[in-house]
């Protein structure tokens, strides 16, 4: 009898364990971007959503996070396997094409355009269909040391030295300029001037920190340079144009600066975190870095050496003006969602002005339309700059939302870093990249 009772209890526990996940599915599960401001903002926004009186228990939102490392690989494996463990999943501009087969388009309503603006909504579109709500926008800032540049501008002897260095290394007659009017040549001359290897009197060890690791995200940072010289992945007819003069100019400038010692020797292993550490140490005069770093690099507690003297401008200009790579993170609908109705309801709410403002106030970085951004300009002045740079200089390369966009970045990272490391010639690197891109971008 005792055995029967034990067995009965065990069976009950087993049944409960099977049934409980069933109960938990009667909610909307959202797979978000883990860590950082995005998670903090999403948590606060979801809390507010769940607290609304009109939200049924079955439509309340639960959050799910896993590690950032290999996030998109894991997401791809999950979605390809038809996972229904989440109803709403993260999607990024550069990976929409890859995940679109496992997602469903969602109609965000007419007001979404007024909140975000059509250009920002487009960062979440594939084949003309809206696949997500844009939650965060990423682009690049040129961070620079105001104290160093100011001192250079006020010192005639320093200006003379600067002009000599520019002539010797770049073959151009240049004078120091305000960073907001830098061309890439001005920036290059400045980085050379502030490099000990070129100018032993430099107050800092390096003029800049180049992110040159064989990593796809580093190609996004780099490509604004060739873009400002007119570069694109393909022309209007779909022909790959990566072997253009614009790309050659950009690649050669990076190599010239690296070889001259304007960037740390280990730059070929540098990515986001290393760049922050290098610039934050006070030993680099400039850094082209993601906007997400602004909060840390201008925070005196986190970066005491440079926070008070760091200025931020848009990336320098080329012959075609300034260019700033943009991509968005957003949330979209899993094709295998168990609670599609609840998921769509949440996504539509997330695209409203109230939700976007709440997300912004909670630390997120949504790109908002100017009149909406004005409502949070006091709490989040950086969002005004983000919106301004995105609208004036933001671009997306032709083909950069296609199914193989990530693979194109991977290919470029491998070939371009091979050139920078001196393992292959520029012509070989571009020829290999062109052949690979033709294969990856063919319909």
């Amino acid at each position: 009898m005792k055995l029967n009772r034990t067995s009965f209890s065990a069976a009950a526990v087993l049944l409960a364990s099977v049934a409980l996940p069933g109960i938990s599915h009667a909610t909307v599960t959202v797979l978000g971007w883990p860590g950082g401001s995005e998670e903090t903002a999403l948590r606060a926004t979801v809390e507010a959503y769940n607290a609304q009186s009109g939200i049924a228990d079955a439509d309340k939102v639960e959050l799910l996070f896993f590690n950032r490392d290999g996030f998109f690989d894991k997401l791809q494996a999950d979605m390809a396997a038809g996972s229904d463990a989440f109803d709403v999943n993260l999607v990024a501009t550069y990976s929409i094409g890859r995940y679109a087969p496992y997602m469903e388009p969602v109609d965000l309503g007419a007001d979404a355009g007024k909140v975000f603006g059509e250009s920002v909504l487009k960062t979440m579109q594939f084949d003309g269909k809206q696949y997500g709500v844009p939650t965060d926008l990423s682009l690049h800032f040129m961070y620079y040391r105001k104290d160093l540049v100011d001192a250079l501008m006020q010192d005639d002897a320093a200006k003379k030295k600067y002009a000599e260095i520019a002539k010797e290394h770049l073959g151009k007659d240049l004078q120091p300029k305000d960073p907001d009017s830098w061309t890439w040549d001005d920036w290059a001359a400045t980085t050379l001037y502030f490099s000990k290897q070129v100018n032993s009197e430099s107050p800092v060890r390096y003029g800049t920190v180049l992110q040159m690791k064989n990593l796809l995200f580093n190609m996004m940072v780099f490509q604004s340079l060739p873009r400002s010289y007119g570069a694109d992945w393909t022309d209007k007819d779909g022909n790959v144009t990566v072997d253009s003069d614009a790309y050659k100019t950009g690649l050669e400038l990076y190599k010239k600066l690296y070889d001259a010692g304007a960037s740390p020797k280990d730059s070929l292993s540098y990515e986001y975190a290393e760049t922050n550490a290098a610039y934050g140490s006070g030993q680099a005069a400039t850094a082209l870095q993601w906007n997400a770093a602004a909060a840390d690099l201008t925070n005196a507690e986190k970066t005491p050496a440079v926070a008070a003297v760091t200025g931020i401008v848009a990336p320098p200009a080329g012959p075609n003006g300034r260019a700033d790579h943009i991509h968005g993170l957003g949330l979209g609908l899993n094709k295998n969602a168990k609670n599609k109705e609840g998921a769509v309801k949440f996504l539509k709410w997330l695209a409203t002005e109230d939700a976007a403002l709440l997300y912004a106030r909670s630390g997120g970085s949504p790109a908002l339309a100017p009149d909406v951004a004005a409502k949070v300009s006091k709490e989040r002045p950086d969002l005004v700059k983000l919106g301004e740079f995105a609208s004036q200089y933001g671009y997306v390369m032709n083909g950069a939302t296609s199914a193989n966009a990530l693979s194109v970045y991977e290919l470029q990272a491998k070939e371009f870093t091979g050139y920078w490391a001196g393992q292959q010639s520029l012509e070989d690197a571009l020829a290999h990249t062109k052949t690979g891109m033709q294969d990856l971008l063919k319909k």
Partner: protein
Amino acid sequence: MAIVNRAEGRAYLTPLVGFLLFFLGFPAAVNLVYSISTVSFETLRSPSLSGFGNYAAVLADHEFWGAVSFSMRFGVLTALAECLIGLFLAVFLTPLLAKRSYLMAPLMLPLMVAPAMIGLMYRLVLHEFAGPVPYYLFEWFGDSPAFLDVDNAFRTLLVVEILQWTPFAFLLFYMAYAAIPLEVREAASLDGASALKALWWIEVPLMLPTLVIAFFIRFIDGFRVFDNVYALTGSGAGGSTTSLSIYIYQAFFKGGAIGKAVAASVVLFLASLAVLYGLNWITGRGRR
């Protein structure tokens, strides 16, 4: 009399065999099917058989052979260095450890850390602006080398791997060295053998099976290296630190070339099997 009869033995073994068949046999079978199929993430459940094209593509890919070369050099050099240093430590530290066995714990510490964490740790340790190594090199010599640039990355990765896994070889050799009967050493000493001769002609031959096994285990581990290399340098500038495991990972996830990646993994599997059979043959011959 047998403790269990044949039928009972089968009954007891069935769950284990079933477990192995399901968790090892099923993925292996799927791998084999994928390796001769045209398959993408969209068609994972409906691959179409296409012959041995994936194998041909892998074998014709110079990046595959570059990765094989990297893994082979990495595996051989790290296994050799770990075994030599491990043997040296075992011989010289045995008298000390016999008296102070608690010293064994700190010596084993590197084994307790996950390789990926080791990679991340050295990313910090070797960083010019955050790491202690470049800091002191700048303090003392006014300069620090680029530990992870294309010229030095391989050497740095070797050192990182050797520092972590030498304790494993040391542990095996220490146990083997300590297990040599005292009488053998006494007999050698009475015959007038010097310590060096006793080591070379008596102790090392007695430890030979352990040396061989340790070398092959470390070679296999070095050959399939992924975590610490990926955390430290990724696949390196221009793919210069692409091990075979990283090649497979990148072909599968980054390139979406599932058939090719799986074909490469089958080649790796067959190579590993050959090494294991070789190991088995060598140790079997030693026993005879």
